[in-house]
């Protein structure tokens, strides 16, 4: 046998229970590659995908159809010269289909006595394309402009889709992180009978639950800079308001969702039930709370309900601070909504929580 010479290991320091519990939560989290991906990787991938899909590439060219015929070639030349239209020759047999499928916004039919425009007036881009095409063809035919005009393109900072999207993704991430992270961990612990086992020790229930909040807040300290840093360097998304205010709103949001997570996990005996409950809570908010598109697209009579959802309030507050530079004191409604969810879900969850 070979003797191994090693320095005696220093005595392990035992921390306060709430801190040991928090450390345990963080260790379990970082040792789970899947959880790491969903927390850090997924929001970044989503930002990349959506940022590319909706990037601003200057004015989009509108595709217009030109019906084949004697004057078609000249018409195509004039329309191409505008720089804003992409004309395409269409055979008469395909004309109806090209229009109904939306392949072309307008079908231009040059004739000996004038030009006919075929289009569906209910399509928003059709009317614009018809005006553009008509304007170009009239000028080419010799119509003078009565008054000189100039086009001034403007772009307000923070007005791109990606600027609008990033705060919503941040809100979504706070919701998913809290709900999945906490609810799943609690139900797993209950299912393993580990919750019962810990209850057989002098551990305070309060410490057990607090550890989830502390570990979530610590995770935020990484999640928020990663997503916002990525958005800044890749897409130039800037935080126009106070960073402190943004962090405070993030923390409040994460805490509210932690309360909802406790509620979802308070009685579920297995992870299937917990999954169902978490989906039930998160999926509607993904859709209506303005993550990917504005919540204002929903009819007016549901707006009061949408506005009191925690994710709506969080997204509104984050967008106000990040995109518009609004001061946190001008967001009392959103802060109040989040605080109500936080307090309400806690009180109910603690009442109905099943420890064994």
């Amino acid at each position: 046998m070979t003797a191994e010479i090693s320095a005696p290991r220093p005595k392990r320091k035992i921390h306060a229970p709430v801190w040991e519990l928090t450390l345990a939560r963080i260790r379990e989290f970082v040792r789970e590659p899947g959880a790491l991906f969903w927390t850090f990787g997924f929001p970044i991938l989503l930002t990349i995908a959506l940022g590319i899909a909706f990037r601003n590439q200057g004015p989009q060219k509108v595709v217009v159809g030109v019906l084949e015929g004697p004057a078609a070639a000249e018409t195509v030349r004039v329309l191409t010269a505008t720089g804003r239209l992409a004309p395409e020759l269409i055979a008469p047999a395909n004309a109806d289909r090209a229009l109904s499928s939306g392949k072309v916004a307008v079908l231009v039919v040059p004739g000996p006595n004038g030009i006919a425009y075929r289009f569906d007036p209910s399509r928003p881009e059709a009317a614009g394309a018809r005006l553009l095409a008509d304007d170009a063809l009239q000028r080419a035919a010799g119509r003078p402009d009565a008054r000189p005009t100039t086009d001034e393109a403007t772009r307000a900072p923070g007005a791109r889709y990606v600027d609008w999207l990033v705060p919503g993704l941040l809100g979504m991430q706070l919701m998913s992180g809290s709900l999945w992270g906490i609810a799943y961990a609690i139900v797993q612990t209950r299912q393993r009978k580990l919750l019962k086992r810990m209850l057989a020790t002098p551990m305070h229930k309060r410490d057990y639950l607090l550890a989830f909040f502390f570990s979530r807040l610590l995770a935020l300290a990484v999640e928020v800079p990663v997503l916002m840093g990525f958005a800044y360097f890749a897409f130039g998304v800037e935080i126009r308001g106070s960073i402190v205010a943004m962090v405070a709103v993030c923390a409040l949001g994460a805490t509210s969702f932690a309360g909802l997570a406790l509620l979802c996990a308070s009685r579920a005996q297995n992870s299937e039930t917990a999954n169902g409950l978490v989906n039930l809570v998160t999926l509607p908010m993904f859709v209506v709370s303005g993550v990917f598109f504005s919540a204002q697209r929903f009819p007016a009579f549901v707006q009061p309900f949408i506005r009191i959802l925690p994710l709506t309030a969080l997204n509104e507050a984050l967008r106000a601070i990040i995109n518009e530079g609004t001061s946190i004191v001008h967001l009392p409604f959103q802060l109040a909504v989040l605080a109500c969810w936080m307090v309400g879900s806690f009180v109910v969850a603690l009442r109905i929580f099943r420890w064994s």
Partner: protein
Amino acid sequence: MTAAIRIEKLCKRYGELTAVDGLDLEVQVGECFGLLGPNGAGKTTTCEILEGLMPPTSGVVEVLGKSWRTSERELRERIGVALQETRLADKLTVEETLALFRSFYRQGRDLDELLASMQLQDKRDAWVSKLSGGQRQRLAVACALVGEPELLFLDEPTTGLDPQSRRALWDLIVEFKSRGRTVLLTTHYMDEAERLCDRVAVVDHGKVIALGTPRQLIDSLGGAHVVELATAPELPLEALRPLPSVKSARTQAGTHALAVDEPHVALPAVLDLARARKVELTQLTTRNATLEDVFVSLTGRHLRDG
């Protein structure tokens, strides 16, 4: 001296089902006490009531002279618990798990020393998911011991373990008891109870049906030995009862089991009877009587049958 555990007329009902049905028990300080019985006998329910994890439907429960209702915090500091089938967190190391449990107690054992006495020092940095069944069970017991309890509850601690791991755990329990501490153990292994327990209570259908030292219970059969025999054609049990030195007799699945004082007296009589009746002996064994025989003679069932 106050008893470590005192239970009077304990009942626990879940709706229609009565899990514990008027159980009385007293466990002395320094004793290793075994609750013995088949699955579903009410052992685990009794344990969890004693551990303060579930309230009884009725009855008196005193642990270390205190009641759970008035002294929960104090009792939690003074008892250690290993539940049946707890699965500790997979992705924490052995040492992290112990440190977590240690943090819950005001006073407790030194981790290095505890790891060494549990033979887990080589595994201190291994994740729980990487441990063998025996190592996991030792860690579970270590978590129960980390607060230096006066009273230790072990609910089926060796179920599913290999013989070597079982023996290692037994040594730990013996060591704990040798320091004057009290153990309440549930098991359906008879050899475990005979080896570890000062006294055992046999529990069936939520009631104590026998109580005493393992020796006393075995002696209550009337004979310390068991002769098992089968014949073709089968001999009537009534023919065997009057044989010399046979204290009691029963039949199960075609095999007769005789509780016998002196095998050297009983065996020739059995052989003579077989010869006289012209039956063939297809099986004949003698062995020491065990607690299993006690359970079978009390209930007519084997422990594992449930």
